[in-house]
C-alpha cells in the first residue's frame, strides 16, 4: 500500500487519539505553523539543539516522539528524512518513567503503522536499563546501525553509554554504544530539573559532537525539556550560550487557551498538622502520617503520598497495613527488582478507583497519574512543582476540588535532609506558607520564581572524553570512574541480584549466569557499602561477588563501586519483595528472611576476554564463506547510510581481513577438533560445535590481533592502513588502543623472552590465504609494535599509531566506524545461525 503524506494534525490524532497543541505542531513542522492551519502542517522542521520549556501535563513526550516520527520515518522525501537523526535517544532521570514512555511510544507507532503512516519497517523501540534485555528484537539494536530506532533509558544507562562506560552491559560492547549514541542521534533529555550533573554533561557532549576538528556521521542535536530548567546551566565551558540566548520552544497564547482546564486546575494547598524533626521517632511519624492519610483519603479516588526517603516510604506503607489498609495499597520507589516493582506500580498507573499509593521522588516527574488528594513532604521548589503536577492533572476534579497537603520538615543538619539541602527546603517553605489555602495550579505556580542555589558540579572536559575512548582497564584492572558526570555524587547506585550459592563447591558459583533486568535491584552505593560491612562482620561464608572477566569467575568483593553489578548470596537477604531493598542482613538460620531468587533468570554466561561467542555457529563454516557474509552484510548496512565514500574502502578491507587470524594453526586445530568429520575443506571460521582447546599458554588467544598484525605486515604504509588495522583489531572490543599481554601470560618453555600478547608469540606464522578479496602470502606475525617508541626501521608503535588515528578522526567517528564493522560481523553471524536453524 502506498504511503499518503498527511498533515501533522491528522498524523498526531491517528497516533494519540487527540488533536495536537499548537506547540506540538511547531516542534514538528517549524516555528511558524499553528494547529489551525492544516495546509501549513505538511512541512518539516529543522532539527537543532534547543530547550523545550512546557508545563507538566501538556504532552511533551508525544510532542517529541511524534515530531521525530513525522520527520524521520513518515516523510516520503528521502532528503527531508536525512536531515533528521536516525536514532532518537530519550533520556529520563528515573526508571519509573522509562517503561511508561516505551509503552506509549510503541502504542503510537503501532497505530501509525496500522494506518500506513510510517514508511518501511517501523522503528525499533528499545529500553536500556541495565541487565540483559530479554526481548529478542530489541536485544541487539546495536547491530542495525542503518535502521531508525528509538532508544529510551535512564540517564545512568544512556549517559554512561555516551561516555563509553555503559552501565550494566558487556564492557566489550561499550565502544559500539559509544559510537552509535554519539553519531546520527537526537538526544532528548526529559525532566532535566531532576538530572543534576547530567545536564552539564549533556551540554558538553552536545558541544563535542559539533567540534569542527572531530568527524561525525549524520546530524546530532540535543533537546532539553523541563518546565523549570535553569538555562544558565547549559552554558558550559565548551557550550557557551549564544548571544541571542538558547533557542526555546514555549507555550503561546493559543496553547494556553486550549489547555485552560489543565493550566488552571484547582488544587488547594494546606499545611498538614504534623512536622518531621530530629526528635520524631520514625515509627511514630509513620503511624501519625498513616492516620492523616486515612482521614484525608476520599473513597473511590486516588490518594498519593510522596516522601523524601525510601525508608520512610517503607515504614509508612507498613503503618498503613497495620491500620487495616491492606488492599488497593501500593509502594513505589526505585529500590525494587523490576517485576516486584511492576506489581506495585500497576496499582498506580493501570489501576482505577480507590487507591492509596505511597511513593518517593520516583513518581515525581512525568508519570501520567492524577490524584484527588496529594500529600507530600517538604521538598525543593522544582520538585514540589512536579509533585503538584500529579494532583488533578487534567482538571478532572475541578468541580469536586482536589487537595494538596504538605508536611513540614524541621531539621538543623544537612545530613538529615539529604538528598536535599537545608537552604533549598527553606526557600520552598517560604513559598508554601505564602500559598496556604490557595490553588497550586500550573498557572498559579508559573508566576513564582524560586532561583535554585548554585550547586558545584564537575564538568566533563574534552580530555576526559578522549581518555574514556580507551576501554583497556588500568594495570590494577580498574576503569575510569564516570559516575561524577552521570549523577550527583550523593545519588549513585550499584545493581544487585541474588543467586543460590548454598552449594559448597565451585559449581554453584559457576552456574550463575548473567542477570536479566528482572533480577536486578538498584541500591545507593553507600547503603550497599553498609550492607557489605554487615556481611563482613557476620563472617559466615555469605559474600557479595563481582564478575572477573580475566579469570572468568565470580570473585568475592567487599567494596561497593558505582555502576557495578553484584551477585549476593540469597541467604544474605537485604531485600523483601514487598518492600524492596531493606539492607537488613537475614539470619542464616531463618530461610523466611532469605531473598527469593527472581522467577526469570538469565541463560547467558558473563562475557570474558577469552570468549569468542561468534566462533561457535551451529555448523562448521569456512573462512571464505563467513567473510563473504560479513562483506555482504556490511554493504547492506552502508547502502542506506550517507557515509562519506572515503570510508567505504577501509571498512570493506577490514571486513575482508577481520578473521584471517583464525587461520593460525593453533586456532585451526581447535576448530577442527570441534567441527567433526563432516566439516568442509579449507580454513574454518566457525567450528559448528564445542570442544577443542588451545594450549594453556595460548589461552588468551585473540584471532583479531593476529588478523590486524597480518594486515599491517602486508599493507603497512598504504593509505588508511592503520585505520583498517584498528577496525580489524577492535572487532570484538577486546583489542583496541593498546596491545599488551595479560596477567600470567608467559611464553612457552623454550621460547625464551620472546614477546607474547593475547596468545600470539612473536614470530608465529599464518599460512598463505587466497579467497575473494583477500590474497595473503605466508605471513609472520611481529609483535615489535607492542613496544614503546619506534622500532629499528623507524616505524611507530601500535599505541602511537592508534592515538594518531583517534586524534585525526576524533573519538566519535572512530567508534562509529568500529561499530559498523562489528554490526556487520554480528548480524552476519546471527544470520548464519538462523539459516542453520531453518535448515
Amino acid at each position, binding site marked *: 500500500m502506498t504511503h499518503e503524506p498527511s498533515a501533522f494534525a491528522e498524523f498526531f490524532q491517528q497516533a494519540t487519539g487527540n488533536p495536537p497543541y499548537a506547540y506540538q505542531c511547531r516542534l514538528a513542522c517549524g516555528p511558524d505553523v499553528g494547529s489551525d492551519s492544516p495546509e501549513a502542517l505538511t512541512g518539516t522542521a529543522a532539527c537543532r539543539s534547543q530547550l523545550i520549556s512546557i508545563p507538566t501535563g501538556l504532552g511533551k513526550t508525544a510532542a517529541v516522539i511524534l515530531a521525530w516520527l513525522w520527520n524521520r520515518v513518515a516523510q516520503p522525501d528521502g532528503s527531508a528524512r536525512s536531515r533528521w537523526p536516525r536514532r532518537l535517544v530519550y533520556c529520563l532521570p528515573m526508571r519509573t518513567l522509562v517503561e511508561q514512555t516505551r509503552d506509549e511510544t510503541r502504542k503510537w507507532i503501532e497505530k501509525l503503522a496500522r494506518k500506513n503512516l510510517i514508511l518501511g519497517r517501523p522503528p525499533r523501540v528499545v529500553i536500556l536499563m541495565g541487565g540483559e534485555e530479554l526481548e529478542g528484537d530489541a536485544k541487539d539494536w546495536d547491530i542495525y546501525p542503518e535502521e531508525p530506532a528509538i532508544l529510551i533509558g535512564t540517564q545512568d544507562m544512556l549517559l554512561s553509554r555516551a561516555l563509553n562506560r555503559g552501565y550494566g552491559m558487556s564492557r566489550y560492547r561499550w565502544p559500539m554504544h559509544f559510537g552509535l549514541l554519539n553519531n546520527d542521534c537526537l538526544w532528548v533529555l526529559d525532566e532535566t530539573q531532576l538530572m543534576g550533573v547530567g545536564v552539564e554533561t549533556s551540554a558538553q557532549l552536545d558541544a563535542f559532537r559539533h567540534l569542527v576538528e572531530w568527524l561525525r556521521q549524520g546530524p546530532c542535536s540535543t533537546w532539553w525539556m523541563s518546565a523549570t530548567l535553569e538555562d544558565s546551566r547549559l552554558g558550559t565551558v565548551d557550550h557557551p550560550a549564544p548571544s541571542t540566548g538558547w533557542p526555546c520552544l514555549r507555550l503561546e497564547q493559543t496553547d494556553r487557551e486550549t489547555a485552560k482546564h489543565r493550566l488552571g486546575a484547582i488544587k488547594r494547598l494546606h499545611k498538614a498538622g504534623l512536622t518531621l524533626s530530629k526528635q520524631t521517632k520514625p515509627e511514630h511519624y509513620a503511624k501519625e502520617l498513616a492516620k492523616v492519610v486515612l482521614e484525608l483519603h476520599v473513597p473511590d479516588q486516588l490518594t498519593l503520598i510522596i516522601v523524601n526517603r525510601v525508608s520512610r516510604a517503607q515504614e509508612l506503607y507498613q503503618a498503613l497495613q497495620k491500620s487495616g489498609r491492606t488492599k488497593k495499597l501500593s509502594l513505589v520507589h526505585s529500590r525494587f527488582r523490576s517485576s516486584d516493582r511492576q506489581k506495585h506500580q500497576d496499582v498506580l498507573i493501570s489501576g482505577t478507583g480507590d487507591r492509596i499509593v505511597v511513593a518517593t521522588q520516583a513518581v515525581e516527574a512525568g508519570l501520567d497519574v492524577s490524584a484527588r488528594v496529594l500529600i507530600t513532604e517538604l521538598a525543593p521548589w522544582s520538585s514540589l512543582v512536579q509533585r503538584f503536577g500529579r494532583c488533578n492533572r487534567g482538571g478532572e476534579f475541578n468541580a469536586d476540588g482536589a487537595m494538596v497537603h504538605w508536611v513540614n520538615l524541621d531539621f538543623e543538619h544537612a545530613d538529615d535532609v539529604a538528598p536535599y539541602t537545608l537552604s533549598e527546603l527553606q526557600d520552598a517553605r517560604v513559598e508554601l506558607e505564602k500559598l496556604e489555602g490557595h490553588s497550586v495550579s500550573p498557572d498559579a505556580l508559573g508566576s513564582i520564581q524560586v532561583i535554585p542555589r548554585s550547586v*558545584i558540579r564537575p564538568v566533563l*572536559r574534552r580530555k576526559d572524553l578522549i581518555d574514556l575512548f580507551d576501554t583497556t582497564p588500568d594495570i590494577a584492572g580498574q576503569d575510569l*570512574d564516570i559516575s561524577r558526570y552521570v549523577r550527583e*555524587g550523593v545519588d549513585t547506585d550499584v545493581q544487585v541480584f541474588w543467586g543460590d550459592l548454598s552449594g559448597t563447591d565451585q559449581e554453584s558459583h559457576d552456574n550463575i549466569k548473567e542477570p536479566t533486568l528482572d533480577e536486578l535491584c538498584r541500591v545507593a552505593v553507600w547503603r550497599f557499602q553498609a550492607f557489605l560491612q554487615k556481611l563482613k562482620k557476620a563472617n559466615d561464608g555469605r559474600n557479595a561477588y563481582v564478575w572477573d572477566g580475566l579469570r572468568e569467575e565470580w570473585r568475592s568483593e567487599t567494596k561497593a563501586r558505582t555502576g557495578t553489578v553484584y551477585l549476593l548470596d540469597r541467604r544474605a537477604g537485604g531485600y523483601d519483595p514487598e518492600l524492596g531493598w531493606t539492607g537488613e542482613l537475614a539470619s542464616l538460620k531463618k530461610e523466611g528472611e532469605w531473598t527469593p531468587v527472581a522467577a526469570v533468570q538469565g541463560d547467558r554466561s558473563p562475557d570474558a576476554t577469552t570468549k569468542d561467542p561468534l566462533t561457535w555457529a551451529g555448523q562448521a563454516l569456512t573462512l571464505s564463506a563467513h567473510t563473504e557474509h560479513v562483506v555482504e552484510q556490511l554493504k547492506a548496512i552502508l547502502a542506506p547510510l550517507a557515509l562519506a565514500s572515503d570510508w567505504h574502502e577501509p571498512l570493506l578491507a577490514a571486513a575482508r581481513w577481520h578473521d584471517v587470524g583464525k587461520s593460525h594453526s593453533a586456532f585451526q586445530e581447535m576448530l577442527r577438533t570441534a567441527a567433526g568429520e563432516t566439516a568442509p575443506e579449507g580454513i574454518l571460521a566457525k567450528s559448528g560445535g564445542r570442544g577443542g582447546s588451545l594450549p594453556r599458554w595460548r589461552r588468551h588467544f585473540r584471532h583479531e590481533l593476529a588478523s590486524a598484525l597480518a594486515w599491517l605486515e602486508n599493507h603497512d604504509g598504504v593509505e588508511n592502513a592503520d585505520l583498517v588495522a584498528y577496525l580489524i583489531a577492535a572487532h570484538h572490543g577486546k583489542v583496541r588502543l593498546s596491545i599488551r599481554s595479560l596477567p600470567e601470560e608467559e611464553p612457552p618453555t623454550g621460547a625464551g623472552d620472546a614477546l607474547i600478547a593475547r596468545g600470539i608469540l612473536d614470530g608465529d606464522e599464518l599460512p598463505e590465504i587466497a579467497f575473494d578479496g583477500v590474497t595473503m602470502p605466508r605471513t609472520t606475525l611481529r609483535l615489535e609494535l607492542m613496544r614503546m617508541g619506534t622500532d629499528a626501521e623507524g616505524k611507530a608503535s601500535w599505541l602511537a599509531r592508534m592515538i594518531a588515528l583517534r586524534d585525526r578522526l576524533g573519538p566519535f567517528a572512530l567508534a562509529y566506524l568500529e561499530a559498523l564493522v562489528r554490526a556487520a560481523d554480528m548480524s552476519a553471524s546471527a544470520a548464519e545461525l538462523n539459516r542453520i536453524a531453518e535448515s
Partner: protein
Amino acid sequence: MRTNHTITLGGCAPAPLSHYLKALGILRIVSEQKSRSARAHWQRDQFLLLSDLDRKALTTFLLDEYKPTPILSPWNAGSGFYYQEEKLNKRDPATGHKVKTGVRNQETTATRVVSEILTSSNPRLSAYRQVIYQTKLLLDSKGQLSAPDTSGADKGELLIELRSIWPDAAVEWLDCVAVLASSHDALSRTGLKPWYTTLLGSGANDGNADFTSNFMQRLTEIFAAPREQAIEMAEHLCLW
C-alpha cells in the same frame, strides 16, 4: 617524520629530579608547540632530543616563540590572587605582633607578578592572561578575598569549579596537581575528594613557597631580560 636533529641537553640528566622533570617539560613543549614528531631518550645520563630543531633553533624557540602553559594555584594563599591584610604600626601588647586591620589591601610579590602578566600585552602570554582573568571573575563572584579554608570542602570545591571553567591547557595542569577521586568520606556534596600529587606538595606549594608564583616570576624576568642575558640564562643555566 622530520626528526633531522639529535641534540644533547646536558642540563637535563635523570638526576637530580628537577633536571629530569625539566627534560620532560622540554619534550612536551617542543612536541606541542614546534615539532610534533619530537622524540627523546636518555643515554649515558644525558638527554637526547630528536626533533627538527638544532641547538640554536631550540634556544631561539624558547626565547622567542615558546608560549608558557598557564599554571596557577588560586587555592593557595601565596598564589598571587589574594592581598595580604593591612597591618598597623601599633603592636598587640599580648603577642608583640603588629595589629591587623582585617582589610586585605596589601600587595605581595605574588600579586604583583599576577598583575604584571594580566596587564602585559605580550602575545605569548595571552593564554596566561585569559586564565588569570577567568579566575579573578570566579573569585569575585564568590566574594573570595582570601585563600579557601583547607579544613572543609572549600579548597576541593574551588578545584572542581576551576576545572569546570578553565581552558583545556590549564585543566592539564590542574590534573597534575590533584586527582579528584570519588570518595565516601568526601567533604564536598559532589562526592569528590582531592588527592594531591606528592611531587607538587599539597597543591603546587612547598610550605609557603608557591611553585606557580615562582614560575611566573622567572618567566617575567627572562621575558624582560636583555638578549645576551636571556641566552645566558636559557643555555648555560638550563639546557646544556
